[in-house]
């Protein structure tokens, strides 16, 4: 299974990496339990910064698409197929839209929502 990234595209490199791994899972090219290369190997092969690959792996791990087990390395998660269909960005956008809608309905202005959102993010 080969992966290809394009440094000319506007899509961030870590996103290209994540999308292709998820697509490979959905297409059945990567199956649960299949081992993945280490961050160092993949970063060097793709001539990317290690942090870029680490970021993609971290998000995929958070989404339970991959799992990392110490010396045994990284592999495809058992529930990767269903988890690859979930787009976290879409999910966040939907939830946020609902919240903003309900805040507006309760009388909050856009400016107040922005300030409150910014304050909450800062305090997290």
């Amino acid at each position: 299974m080969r992966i290809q990234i394009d440094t000319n595209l506007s899509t961030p490199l870590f996103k290209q990496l994540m999308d292709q791994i998820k697509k490979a899972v959905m297409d059945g090219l990567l199956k649960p339990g299949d081992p993945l290369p280490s961050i160092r190997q993949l970063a060097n092969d793709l001539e990317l910064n290690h942090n870029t690959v680490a970021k993609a792996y971290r998000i995929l791990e958070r989404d339970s698409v991959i799992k990392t087990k110490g010396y045994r390395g990284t592999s495809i998660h058992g529930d990767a197929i269903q988890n690859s269909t979930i787009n976290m960005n879409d999910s966040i956008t939907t939830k946020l839209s609902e919240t903003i809608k309900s805040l507006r309905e309760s009388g909050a202005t856009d400016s107040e929502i922005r300030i409150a959102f910014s304050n909450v993010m800062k305090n997290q």
Partner: protein
Amino acid sequence: MNIDLLLYIVLFSQIMFLSYYYPRRMLIRIHTIFKNYPPNEFPKLYPESIEKYKKSAKRYQIMNHLMIGLGLGLILWFYITPRTGEWDQVIVFWYFMIQFLPTIGLELWAMKYHNAMRLLNKDAQKEAVLQPRRLTDFVSKNLLGTVILIYVIFVGFIAYVDQFDYPWFGGYLNVLIISGVFLFFGIIGYRAMYGKVKNPHQSYEDRKTDIQTLMRQLLSMSIAVMLYAMLQISLKVFGLESFKAISISLYFHVIGFLSMQWPRLDFINFDVYKDKPALTK
């Protein structure tokens, strides 16, 4: 047979093998690439002018001719100078170190060549295989097991000889030195397997072949270095020190032979060096 005569024969063989036969095969390989894969058809193979590479090849050839001259001079010097033979091994060792300089030069040239290739590489698309590389993908478990077994035998051998309290014997320092050599080989192997891509155009299959060749060489050299160390100690124990210079020369033959394992040119995918990379890259 006279030991001195045997030394001259073995040393002559070392000179011809490492400074004539080995570079000749290397130069044939380089010139075959120049001829069959010219810059107009394979521009990515030549990040700099082919004339520059031809000059480097010529320099390599001249350096090896100098090594032949130096080696033959050494044999002549051995022949005409009365000597005890005590320093023969050291002299043969240092001659090999000098004899090896053109090969080191070639390695440095290869590093510069790949750097130039990377600097000129404008491909925005990068490709990788989503599969972890493991040592056993490149070398058989049998070879790996043999290296481990010989290492255990080597440590046992050192422990055995250590009981006799020979004043000249370095004891476990030998194990430390061999372990240091292994560490050095390990770093080379690790960099080849997981390090940065040296040649940005090379197909993944060719890269795997290169890694496999290197790994086999490193493991074979590991076996050779341990067997050689045990032989050297044994020669000293049995009072056969006069054979040490011959044995070190034979060892260098083995090292040269192991370094000469290159992938066949017709198995290499040269299409990747064409202007438009092949889809199979």
